[in-house]
């Protein structure tokens, strides 16, 4: 009877453990870039408030386990960093924050676990594993340090295994100041999943290798202006234009002009922003032409719109 109770208890804990610990997907399936981003966004932008103050295992330094304290009642953003096994995806991590007891815990995920989860791999790989298993579920896009000479797409990754940084990041977008990333990182004072802007200098000098997940379903759609409603009359000389994300768009660019395709009123990159207030629009009832460019992996494409200027 006693043995039966022990076995039942063990089975219960094993099932609970299996239900709330990410050890890999059952099979490697096709997925889109937006799905990868959605998983990353969830782990970066979700907030959590620990049920109880606890200490989370982060890494081992010279044989000593290093923990970080998270306080009950404090709201944090982004899944906590942790090299513990197994790794947590957002659902598991969030659940754990609601039930955790005090003491030393192994919650969260680390940089390669973050990528493994976002890429829906069948197991958690570390940075060394991502390098040694090239050609399996992912492919190298170039040599270590070649970030400047490849064309990265949303959800690609950059990996720097030992003896270099022992870190990896996921590509979000190009921007004028560098490369926007999504990553789980121990960098800086807060060890949480976050977006970063990495310089080419840093990525090249630390020999990050660009890699791409296999079985990506490529979807591309130009962004569309959503406000003000195209074809309507503008309300003043200052107008806030808004657009949807489209799909697979790495950068937006906006023209406003006095002729079709013109940009004599406004002409600038929007990076990944989804709105822009344009001032100095004429107020004499003329036709105003707006062109919204979307940078897709296939190149720049645009949608054209017209408005009637405010007439005072």
């Amino acid at each position, binding site marked *: 009877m006693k043995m039966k109770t022990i076995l039942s208890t063990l089975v219960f804990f094993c099932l609970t453990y299996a239900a709330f610990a990410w050890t890999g997907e059952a099979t490697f399936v096709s997925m889109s870039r937006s799905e990868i981003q959605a998983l990353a966004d969830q782990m970066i932008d979700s907030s959590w408030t620990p049920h109880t103050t606890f200490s989370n295992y982060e890494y081992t*330094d010279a044989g000593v386990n290093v923990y970080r304290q998270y306080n009950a009642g404090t709201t944090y953003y982004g899944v906590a960093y942790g090299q513990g096994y197994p790794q947590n995806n957002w659902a598991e991590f969030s659940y754990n924050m609601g039930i955790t007891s005090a003491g030393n815990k192994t919650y969260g995920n680390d940089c390669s676990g973050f990528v493994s989860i976002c890429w829906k791999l069948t197991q958690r790989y570390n940075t060394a594993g991502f390098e040694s298993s090239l050609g399996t579920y992912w492919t190298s896009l170039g040599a270590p340090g070649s970030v400047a000479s490849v064309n990265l797409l949303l959800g690609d990754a950059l990996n720097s295994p030992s003896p270099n940084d022992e870190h990896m990041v996921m590509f979000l977008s190009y921007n*004028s100041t560098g490369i926007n990333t999504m990553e789980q990182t*121990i960098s800086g*004072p807060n060890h949480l999943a976050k977006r970063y802007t990495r310089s080419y200098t840093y990525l*090249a000098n630390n020999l990050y290798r660009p890699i791409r997940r296999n079985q990506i379903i490529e979807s591309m759609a130009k962004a569309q202006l959503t406000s003000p409603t195209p074809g309507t009359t503008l309300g003043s000389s200052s107008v806030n234009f808004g657009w949807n994300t489209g799909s697979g768009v790495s950068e937006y660019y906006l023209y406003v002009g006095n002729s079709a*395709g013109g940009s004599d009123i406004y002409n600038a990159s929007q*990076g*990944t922003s989804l709105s822009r207030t344009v001032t100095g629009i004429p107020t004499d009832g003329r036709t105003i032409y707006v062109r919204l460019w979307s940078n897709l992996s296939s190149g720049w494409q645009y949608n054209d719109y017209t408005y009637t200027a405010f007439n005072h």
Partner: protein
Amino acid sequence: MPSAKTSPQIYRIRPLLLSVLLIISSILVLWLHQSRTSLVSHLSDSRQTHPQYPVDKVASVAGSFSNPVEIEVQPNTIKAGTIIPYGSGEGQIGIIRGPGGRPVSGPESFAVGADGSIYLADALNHRVLVYSNSGELLRSIRISGIGLADLTVDRKGNIYVYDDAERSLSQFSSDGSLVTKLLVNAADIISRGYVHIVGESVYFANSANSDILIASLRDGVLAAVDLNSDRNSDGIHSATGKVYSIDVTRGQTMQIIVHNDSVNLDEQHFAISLPGILSATYVGEDLKGQFYIQTERSDGTAIALEVQKFDMKGQLLATTRMPETDYALGTIKLLDVGNDGAIVQFLPQNNQAKLQMFQ
């Protein structure tokens, strides 16, 4: 920037004309050429394959990346510098090393004050280290209870700290006592950037060289702004009231728009041809109104970190290449500039950090 100059309709017609109407080909080809020229001219706008950047002036850093003509690169341009050991003691800065012994976490932010002092965020030791513009450690300010993800200073020496875990902005007096703390979880902050103060406004400069207003100063105290309003600016604000919009056509040019007067829409547009350019980041102005832009360029094998210096009229004055770029840690800024025009580099290397000032 590629621009389609072809007319598919003409190409479909031409083989038919050549095979069937050989006798009149010379006349017809001449006619077609004229038609095509005018047709392409008419269609060129709707056939753009890339946004065309506005340009009033075009300058150039002549020569190839590997042998630039106008580059001023000399180690002897170092005006001052200091080596900062890693550790937790006096005059040291904290890092975490990975299993392989390389730094994996540590200081990520620094700022230059109005008097030229340099403020380093020693995040792991929970303090701000203040150095003179000659590299002398002046003081250490204890900052506790908050993550030192980024910092900036105002003219009075107040310190502002952004914590990316709580997404908060805190104001500390120059002795490190907390003045106030705001939550700034704005949905429009979708990239990492740096916080800076211009007048009474506190901006988050994002990775697209655009400012997002995140707070203001009222009677010298940090105050909230309406995070649901449109707070985006088309560029980075400077102390002289100008706003700098900077963009890059990868591998080719850097485009700059200087908004001299946002009310009257007085703007200067110019472009710089920079072979191999990858990025461009506004760094700052000096007291003469000269402005500085950090660029990264590649020749296919190596990446050069440079600073382009412009006069008030947008004339390129000098290009300075940083002699050392072995950043072992990812930092919010690679470089900054002081009021005296000194370029400040905080360089966390494998075994030590360097604080260097270039003139």
